[in-house]
């Protein structure tokens, strides 16, 4: 399959991926390394927290979303990374052993003014759990390489 370039990301195009299961031990291992709060680490202690039970770190959800993006299309694209993230909403707790599905929708695209070899693609990413509830949304612009431009005509 040929590599996806900036020109291939037209507004409204949708990429889907998953479901991807989140094994309890991997979820807890992430929390132990990056977000060691009881609500993400310990079933018993988590029951007393606002979440009411063990739930994934929101940062784990971001990292899993990134991995699913790479597996869905970023890994087969001219990706040049991203300058940031406009907004992330953690809508519902993500539970151990749940399975997440990703939907990525192209919102808009624009060429870079300073770099003719690059363009921006603004996406809405949504994660759904196994019960088809939307658990997280993320809005960001990715930077992608453009197809070779035709060489400019020599000035007459």
């Amino acid at each position, binding site marked *: 399959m040929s590599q996806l370039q900036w020109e291939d990301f037209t507004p409204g195009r949708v990429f889907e991926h998953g479901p991807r299961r989140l094994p309890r031990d991997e979820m807890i291992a992430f929390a132990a390394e990056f977000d060691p*709060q009881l609500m993400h680490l310990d079933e018993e202690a988590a029951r007393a*927290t*606002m979440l009411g039970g063990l739930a994934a770190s929101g940062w784990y959800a*971001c*990292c899993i979303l990134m991995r699913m993006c790479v597996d869905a299309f970023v890994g087969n694209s001219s990706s040049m*990374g991203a300058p940031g993230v406009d907004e992330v*909403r953690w809508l519902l*707790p993500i539970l151990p052993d749940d399975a997440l599905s990703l939907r990525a929708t192209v919102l808009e695209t624009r060429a870079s003014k300073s770099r003719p070899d690059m363009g921006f693609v603004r996406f809405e990413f949504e994660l759904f759990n196994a019960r088809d509830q939307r658990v997280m949304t993320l809005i960001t612009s990715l930077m992608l390489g453009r197809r070779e431009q035709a060489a400019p005509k020599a000035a007459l």
Partner: protein
Amino acid sequence: MKLWEDMAVGERAEIGRYTFTTDNIKGFARRFDPQPFHLDEAAAARSHFGALCASGWHTASVWMRLMVEHQNREDEARRARGEPIAALGPSPGFRELKWLKPVYVGDTVIYSTEVIEKRASNSRPDWGLMSIRNSGVNQKGEPVISFVSVAFVERRKRAA
């Protein structure tokens, strides 16, 4: 965590620092962000980054780790002084995350946090919400990451 009532807009703290290495950059990227510029020196050299650099999610996840450790240390000190300790609740999300410069092998990022807004929770009277601006600068003083996050913080118990 300080009680929500005791937090003041403008309060700022350095929460910790972390050095990114070839091993921790690649280890993180293999699991969560396996793109060539986070995994392979030669491919990274050909990319617009110019050299192997950390996944932005790695830079952000390290902030969370340092924030939890910082709060644990602060809570220990509060306990020793006999001061109340508020629970830190979950976060509804964050916004305006900017990866301002790549984080390269050998860079040490110094992370800080600042309270920028407080508001009461309409739905949960025992909790307030705080907005904090979190940032990281490298050893040369160049900003590398910035974002605004929101979290629930426990309020002082009120007489029924």
